[in-house]
């Protein structure tokens, strides 16, 4: 009996020592950003990437989220940043932001699509969770995934 108990405890310990598996999406974003020499300031915790084209409903949710949490992404803070990428039209982007002046946001306007990762998820708003400049986790806002709800919880902590 003791022998089995010992084995179970050992298995549990080995299992718990295993590093959390990095998702393929995280690996892909990490790889692409390294290739393109993109890095994040160590202070940044969350990066919201909003594409200009793709899943229109999801992008509308992303824009609405940004409007609602504009103060969390303001220029005065350093923890959150928003990246506008795959911009079809600056005019339409500004129009969709309505009352929010882009100059008041801690933002990057990515006209060269450097932050756009070539994958099926690029059509959705993406949230990068960062630790000391390293990408730890990536979540998307899609019809089946609610990445913005998780970000909301993080911002309200």
């Amino acid at each position, binding site marked *: 009996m003791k022998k089995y108990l010992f084995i179970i405890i050992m298995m549990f310990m080995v299992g718990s020592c295993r590093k959390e598996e990095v998702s393929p999406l995280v690996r892909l974003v990490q790889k692409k950003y390294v290739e393109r020499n993109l890095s994040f300031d160590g202070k940044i915790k969350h990066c919201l990437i909003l594409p200009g084209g793709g899943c*229109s409903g999801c992008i509308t949710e992303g824009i609405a989220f940004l409007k609602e949490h504009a103060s969390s992404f303001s220029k005065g803070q350093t923890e959150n940043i928003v990246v506008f990428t*795959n*911009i*079809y*039209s*600056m*005019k*339409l982007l500004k*129009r969709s932001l309505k009352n929010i002046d882009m100059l008041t946001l801690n933002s990057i306007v990515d*006209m*060269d*699509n450097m932050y*756009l990762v*070539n*994958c*099926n998820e*690029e059509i959705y708003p993406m949230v990068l969770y960062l630790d000391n400049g390293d990408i730890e986790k990536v979540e998307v806002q899609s019809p089946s995934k609610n990445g913005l709800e998780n970000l909301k919880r993080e911002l309200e902590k």
Partner: protein
Amino acid sequence: MYKILVPFLILILYSCTPKISQNENLQYGVEIDSLCMDKEYTEKIISVGDQISSCPVSSQVVVIDNKEKYLLLDESVIYIFDWEKGMLEDSILLKSCGRLKNYSGFRYNTEDSILVYNYPKKELYFVDVQGKIKSKWNLKDKKNKVDVEAINGTQPICCKSKIILSGAKLGDISSVAANQRGVSTSIDLKNGEECTIFSYPESYDKSFWGGVYMNTVYHAYDGVSCMFYSFPIDHNIYRYNVANNKCDTIYMGSRYTQKICSSGASPIDLFTDKNERIMYYVKEHSYGNILYDRYRGLILRMAEHPRDEMNADGTFIKPFSVVVWDVKNKKLSESLIFKDHDKLNLGNMHVCKEGLAIAEINKKDESKIVFRCYKLR
């Protein structure tokens, strides 16, 4: 045992690999007249200002009161510009049609007859210039599942008391049942009956064509009774007469296109790998939009030619030439290949009195749309 197992495994692996088929252009390289289009162009400038979109997906050049106008749909408004002067003259408010997003579009017939399609709601409206709804159809639960797109290339058409709507399907067409392959549907204005009038041609039976870009359908209307359909993989176009339901083919292949090959990848691989999906299309010949020129009785068809890579920013507009069919004289011609394809927006091209107008892509100055007008003979 191995003698049986090994050939069996080889057979299974072979049958899992998609077969590549080719659509040969039997008239490839034939000398044809290339003087249909002037190489030189004049510019037409539409001043959209700082609020109206400079890259509409649904727009039209139309004659109103003997003058050419440029109409564009932006959100829930059709803006009317004078084509010559480029100034905004009027607008039609379409709030009654809901939020017109994504693949929503319109077609102006007369001031009492404007077709508007709301893509998210799958609703079609007949409105007048006041934006007042005269009739409305919901296409959501229709049997003939054509996923209607009303943007440029497949604008809704009103022809012989019928409304014609078209849209592409995604995926492997060859695996879809024959009665589910419809790309164009008609609604009878008298009794509201809907039926599929055109499906993917046989050329899609042979193999898998990438599932996305090569599945696109384009249509044009001659203003009398004929619809013309163009498919990316087919050297022929299809003429469908709405009055008598007869269909024939017209050869409109490009002299630069020897063959179009299907994708060798499996549908699952292309579904999961966006890059591979795009690169198959980018590296292959194909055909694009089709327009009817009522002034000169010409059919214009875009032939798209391969390129090696996408641009660094992920865009991938292909070099193109314009194949022209003179309907009356049955004469085929083709322009040279446009090398400045990256500067042109083939999603915003129209026939005007002068010739073929193609919008330039200009992200730096969004206060105007600059059209290049190429004179047609």
